[in-house]
């Protein structure tokens, strides 16, 4: 009994230490990355499940790139370069409004890559970006790669792509098309991450919906809610800027069919 009380006391101290450490971290002006599930969090059954879900999308992406690069020789450098550009875009340090700019967050970029390259190739690019981040930035993980590809790659790319296309069908301006793609892809990415984390409490009798809602709520209330809108605005500005300076790029990528004024 005495040992258990002692262990409890140690646990409480550990918790207080972690809380203080994290507060110091949050207010130290570092970048806040929250959408990638880190190594070791997903248990084996979920890690395998998310890999199994992601593999078909990746396979279709690989097939599309392989087929296209044989037809158009400049396709591989184009995809690689735009992939690098989206990776760099996803490193933009956006100040977090909720913390009065004391910490920064970063955009996902999958909405933009889905607009530029199409959803399946975007899933592949997201997968490669996540692998590079997991290995060289300790951001995400190898066993959680499937889960991260599902939330960021699949949900982010497809939702962003369809949001862009629907906005185009509704004859919205290019800015609003980009805006909705950015916002919706971000929202779905965080929703995906929340679902993946929420599913972890089912095994031990927890409420999946409550946990998912709470995690999603925390994401939205801290940095990511505003970030969704900010990313949407930035993607909108990017589309308009590229269209004004180099409309041929959007024509080349099949984003615009004709060069009308913005």
């Amino acid at each position: 009994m005495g040992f258990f009380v002692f262990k409890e006391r140690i646990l409480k101290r550990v918790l207080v230490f972690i809380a203080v450490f994290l507060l110091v971290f949050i207010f130290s002006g570092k970048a806040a990355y929250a959408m990638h599930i880190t190594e070791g969090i997903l248990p084996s059954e979920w890690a395998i499940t998310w890999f199994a879900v992601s593999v078909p999308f990746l396979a279709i992406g690989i097939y599309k790139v392989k087929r296209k690069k044989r037809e158009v020789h400049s396709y591989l450098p184009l995809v690689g370069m735009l992939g690098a550009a989206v990776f760099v875009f996803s490193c933009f340090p956006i100040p977090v409004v909720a913390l009065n700019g004391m910490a920064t967050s970063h955009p996902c970029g999958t909405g933009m890559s889905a607009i530029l390259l199409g959803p399946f190739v975007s899933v592949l690019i997201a997968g490669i970006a996540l692998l590079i981040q997991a290995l060289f930035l300790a951001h995400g993980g190898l066993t959680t790669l499937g889960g991260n590809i599902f939330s960021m790659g699949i949900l982010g790319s497809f939702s962003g792509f369809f949001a862009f296309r629907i906005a185009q069908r509704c004859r919205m301006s290019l800015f609003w098309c980009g805006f909705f793609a950015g916002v919706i892809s971000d929202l779905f990415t965080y929703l995906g991450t929340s679902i993946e984390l929420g599913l972890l409490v089912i095994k031990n009798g927890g409420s999946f919906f409550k946990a998912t809602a709470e995690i999603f709520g925390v994401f939205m209330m801290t940095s990511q809610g505003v970030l969704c809108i900010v990313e949407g605005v930035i993607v909108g500005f990017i589309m308009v800027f590229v269209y004004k300076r180099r409309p041929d790029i959007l024509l080349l990528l099949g984003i615009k069919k004709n060069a009308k004024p913005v």
Partner: protein
Amino acid sequence: MGFLHHTFTDRYTQRNNWLTRIDVRVKLIYLLSMLIANLWAKNAYVSLSFLFISFVFLLTINIFPLVMIKNMVLPLLFAFMMLVVKGLHEGENEWISFSVAGYIVALKKEGILGGLQIGGKILGGVSLVILFSLTTTMSQLNAGLKWLRMPNTVLELMSFMYRYIFQLLNEVSAIWYAQRARLGHASWRKAIKSFGVLGGMLIIRAVERAERTSEAMYARGYKGGCILTCHLKPLERNEYICFSGMALFFPFLLYAGNIKIW
């Protein structure tokens, strides 16, 4: 924007030490086996031993452990979130409870213990990945992944992205500093618009660079085939001994991970 240059862990990979000299296939097999053992573990012994081993190995190649600790800050943030989520949703025995704006926060003992175990897994898993990335170059990684039958298209795209991330990052950094010097980030509105211009320039430069690169590739005889040349020497006796060692050690890791602590 300079933060990414300093965060990439591959800047230590060009050093000549006993870990960089190990064949990448051996390192990959060890990494994957240990990550699986970490994932399957039902206690924190195995994970924490991985963390300890990683720190010791880093010390042997004269890399200060602070490099690893810096990279672990973000995973720790996630670990804390999991601790709170599990504490709130798992278990019966209430440990700490308090009210925040009418919302009763009740942390349960079982959930907290489960959360701490996940924390150990995160630390163990991330430390292994960091150790690998600190001692393996991208070209070695490509060769290893090719040996693991990763499709060529993925490796080509990964090489392209990795090759140009730093160049694009340099260009974007220059534009970003120029914008800041001219008060382009003085207010929130200006900052968002500046980020839009920055992202637009990034896309335009990526496409222009892709055009130039594809011309250069075409001039060198590229016809849409494979562009990678990964040289893998035949496996030697030392590598076979290492593989056998892991084959013998792996069941022990799985067994040690299943010893119950709490």
